[in-house]
């Protein structure tokens, strides 16, 4: 990412900690992330606690009258958002593994547009270090 003198690039982290339905936080957080992508900042997403449910496969909202917005996450790579951290303990505590979550990838322009994995599975301790490196942390 270019960082010349008149353009500030900060590390922005969006922390998703709530289930996708039941409250509007997950949906409105995703709306912030997609807008933020236009600002050429260094963006990371975290899914922890019940937030890991936001990425589960095969979501169906037909019976609750809400929009299933989970397919939108697969577009994150196109928005140049390629650092997605998932907390391992949160998966373990809920009986989930990465297999239960949708794959998220991006195309690496520095490597002949090879498709690469955006997801980083991190421990709670490792996540704390990543949070520590951020300039701005939004928690939703």
């Amino acid at each position, binding site marked *: 990412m270019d960082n010349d003198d008149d353009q*500030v690039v*900060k590390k*922005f982290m969006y922390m998703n900690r709530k289930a996708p339905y039941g409250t*509007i*936080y997950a949906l*409105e957080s995703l*709306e*912030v992330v997609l*807008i*933020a992508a*236009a*600002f050429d*900042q260094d963006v990371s997403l975290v899914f922890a606690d019940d937030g890991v449910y936001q990425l589960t496969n095969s979501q169906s909202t037909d019976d609750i009258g809400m929009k299933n917005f989970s397919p939108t996450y697969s577009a994150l790579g196109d928005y140049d958002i390629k650092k997605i951290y998932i907390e391992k303990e949160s998966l373990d505590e809920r009986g989930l593994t990465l297999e239960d979550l949708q794959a998220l990838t991006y195309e690496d322009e520095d490597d002949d547009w090879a498709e690469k994995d955006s997801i980083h599975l991190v421990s709670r301790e490792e996540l704390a270090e990543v949070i520590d490196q951020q*300039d*701005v*942390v*939004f*928690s*939703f």
Partner: protein
Amino acid sequence: MKYGILVNEGPYTHQASDSAYKFTKAAIDKGHEVFRVFFYHDGVNNGTSLAVPPQDDRHIPDQWSALAKDHGVDLVLCVAAAQRRGILDEDEAKRNGKTSHNVIEGFRISGLGQLIEAGIQADRLVVFGD
């Protein structure tokens, strides 16, 4: 220090907006700059002009409004979050064919870019939520 503030909860149900208000006021009183207060999620309900709390209770939207009037603090309601929840200024009401509007003086409606800008401009962005 230059602060940005994000308020994610509405008045009364959660303490978050009270805490945000007290923090903002304290920061200004101590001589810090508050670049912007951005209201998102149910936080947009802090900007209603139609709240009528009991007389022996604090009036949260009025408190924010006074803060803008006295100190020129930029209070911004997210347009998408506000529209969902029926918080409209005169322009938005007109644009959406509504007959009334309900944003209290001192607040303005704008987009999420204003939140990101606050994150870029401020030395610290403080989030008040649940």
